[in-house]
């Protein structure tokens, strides 16, 4: 039977998740992102859920310590040093602890899903990705010490000693020798998964400023989170473009600032190439996202874009998402062009305008709300 504290604990987790959900909007629009930790969990800072009590204010109180030093010397240790942020914890009272909550990807994604009422995605295509999982289900006679199975090793030793007549029931000492040692061993299981790829395209022409990029960055983090939750493994590819397009890594994608004109078709062409080269639409769930401020060089280029979309990209994609980030310089014309062609609610094309950081969540809902 589980100790009742496990119920208290799950209740605490529930409260924490509730708090996160309540403040998700604020949290997302502040541009902060959960810190990913090694083991696939995310650290989410949240205001402490302390019980309010009458207590003494911190700063005026100071404290007492023991040790060397002259009056005027900084108090040694983690506090006191480094102006500004030091000292919040000094004194006998631990002050306002900010609670850091660890959530798994599933938990965080399901909070997002609940808040935005996102439907689960129905994957298309076959389960083609082979993923292998090692499960420690068997026992072998070789292996590293760290996987030594003591019970089984001693059992073997006992068997051997009984068989060779060296076991004395009155003095039941069992000493395993090398050949008695048993080790946990892994069986490799192959599982087939649905495969998905996300192709992010971003306009990095002069009119896209830092704030716009921040929006794209935040939005793509949460989109990735959701898709990772829906598909076991996803590929993510990044394309930046101004008048020409190139594929880059994640860091470059969010850092680069180019200038010059904008030919959106260059990105779409590259996107088409990537799909054709690496991702067979029959096997892959393909999600192209394009973020831009809506300025394109010419109506001719826009026409070319629509052609590529119609002929190549849309037929092979689950859904094509276009997010238009408002900028002071952009005309926003491209949104209108797409809108007049595909309409507000198309089956294969989702359009969303992202006015500012506060609109990020709504835009995510636009993109992922269809469950495709």
């Amino acid at each position: 039977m589980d100790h009742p504290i496990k119920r208290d604990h799950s209740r605490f987790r529930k409260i924490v998740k509730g708090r996160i959900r309540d403040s998700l909007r604020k949290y997302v629009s502040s541009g902060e992102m959960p810190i990913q930790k090694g083991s696939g969990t995310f650290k989410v800072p949240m205001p402490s859920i302390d019980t309010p009590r009458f207590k003494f204010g911190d700063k005026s109180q100071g404290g007492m310590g023991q040790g060397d030093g002259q009056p005027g010397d900084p108090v040694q240790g983690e506090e006191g040093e480094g102006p500004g942020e030091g000292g919040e914890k000094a004194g006998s009272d631990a002050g306002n602890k900010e609670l850091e909550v660890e959530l798994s990807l599933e938990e965080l994604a399901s909070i997002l899903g609940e808040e935005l009422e996102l439907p689960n995605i129905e994957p298309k295509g076959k389960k083609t990705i082979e993923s292998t999982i090692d499960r420690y289900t068997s026992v072998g006679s070789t292996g590293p010490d760290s996987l030594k199975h003591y019970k089984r090793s001693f059992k073997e030793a006992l068997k051997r000693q009984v068989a060779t007549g060296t076991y004395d029931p009155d003095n039941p000492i069992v000493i395993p020798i090398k050949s008695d040692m048993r080790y946990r061993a892994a069986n490799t299981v192959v599982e087939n998964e649905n495969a998905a790829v996300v192709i992010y395209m971003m306009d990095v022409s002069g009119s896209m400023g830092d704030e716009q990029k921040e929006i794209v960055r935040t939005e793509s983090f949460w989109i990735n989170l959701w898709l990772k939750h829906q598909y076991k493994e996803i590929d993510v590819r990044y394309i930046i473009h101004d008048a020409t397009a190139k594929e880059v890594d994640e860091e470059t994608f969010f850092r680069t600032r180019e200038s010059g004109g904008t030919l959106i078709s260059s990105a779409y062409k590259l996107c088409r190439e990537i799909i054709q080269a690496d991702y067979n639409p029959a096997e892959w769930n393909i999600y192209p996202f394009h973020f831009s401020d809506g300025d394109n060089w010419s109506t001719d280029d826009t026409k070319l874009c629509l052609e590529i979309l119609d002929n190549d990209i849309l037929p092979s994609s689950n859904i094509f998402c276009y997010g238009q980030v408002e900028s002071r310089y952009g005309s926003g014309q491209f949104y209108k062009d797409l809108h007049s062609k595909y309409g507000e609610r198309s089956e294969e094309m989702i359009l969303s305008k992202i006015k500012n950081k506060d609109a990020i969540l709504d835009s995510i809902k636009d993109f992922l709300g269809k469950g495709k």
Partner: protein
Amino acid sequence: MVSRFDMLRSKPIDGELLKLRDEILQYALDFGLDFYPVVFEVCDYDTINILAAQGGFPSRYPHWRFGMEYDQLSKGYAYGVQKIYEMVINTDPVYAYLLKANNIVDQKLVMSHVYGHADFFKHNAWFKTTDRSMMDVMANHGSKIRRYMEKYGQDEVETFIDKVLSLENLLDTNVLFESPEKARLRLERLSEAQKEEAEYDEHEGKSQALRSYMRSALRHSDSEVGPKLSGSDDFDTMAPPAHIGRRDIMLYLMEYAPLKEWQADVLGILREEAYYFLPQRMTKIMNEGWASYWHSKIMTTKALRSSEVIEFADKHAGVMAMSPQQINPYKIGIELFRDIEYRWDTGRFGKEYLECSDMQVKANWDRPTGMGREKIFEVRRSHNDITFIDEFFTPEFCERQQLFTYNFNSRTGRYEIESRDFEAIKTKLLQSLTNFGQPMIEVAAGNYENRGELLLNHIHQGVDLDTHYAADTLKNIYEIWKRPVNLKTISEDKEILYCFDGKELKIKD
């Protein structure tokens, strides 16, 4: 009550540990320690984390905060930043939990330490009225609250507990000296009041608040202090009866706030538990000092094998480490007990010694009186942390311990050592211990401005309240009092009045 062993994987000690226990027990008795029987049990780290999260008790009422404590303790253990070696519970018999993974030296140290605590629990004056059957009481509280949760809904009850926990530190230390006789009388009055309330329930149309007011008025009509029904002079004070103390805010709300019966009961339960833990909060330095003194004495003079010296020294030094950021109660406590023993062994006390102004003579003072051991036993009986420091904290001790005060320097933006002056340090130390380190809040009026509002008064002793916390606390008290709640305090040398009226917080100068 669910048996402790059903839920916990702790079990009585046996084998070698039992032999060690017998040995250590004998040493403790030989030294004159005296305690209720001590039951040692071993458990794994998860079990000890559960126990610690629940204040040492295996069964508590359901509440998320225990889950939060458990969460943090488990992480602390997993990351290797903290580890609980032992837990000891002030009951009769005393329960003490040993961590299974401890090595033998640790277990011996912990057992000696536990006997020190057990002796302190039994003899210190502030524990005189402690209910030693708290193991059962807590378990009963748990099942009572679980029943309320079944009946009224877990959320409803838990939310109410959240509010009450805001009051948990507003305790009156004098209550610890309320005799059982008085406590019984008080309980009788309460049950009478509940009967009366049942009668009043027939008078429909009266507001809860009015009914509650009349209930308390009637109850106290025969005493001079309580509120009176007729238009008397102190109508607008409605102060709590003097013998209870205006600082026992939980009791005040229990008696005067418009509570449902189950709410009053929950409030009473939480109050009882808070008072159970109060003596431990008031004697932290002494209690840990006393236990450390005895683990050190027992280990170094009796129980330690020569092969264990290094291990013991390492552990002991870890516990006694000085910190530049805060006082280590173990360290100050043990050193002060040793200092007292030394002074009373060498006659360094009394008028003649204290008035001696020749430093040379004072430093070499030696009049073998041999009263040290006797003195520390007396001290552990009759003092709490405040009187302990007030009486035995000397300039010589202060200097030897390298104590200092520090404060935030807003010019440099860091904490800096402020002073090594004896008086300043002693003042600050006493201040931090006053009212067990919590702000002193009293009920000033229960019918403030003749509008049934609650007026609390913060007895300001030099340190302002944290305003954010104060505001949230007022909101929680409002939920219990159901009428506007006021708090008089001093902020930045100005007297101010906070008022929360259910909608917004107003601040009046």
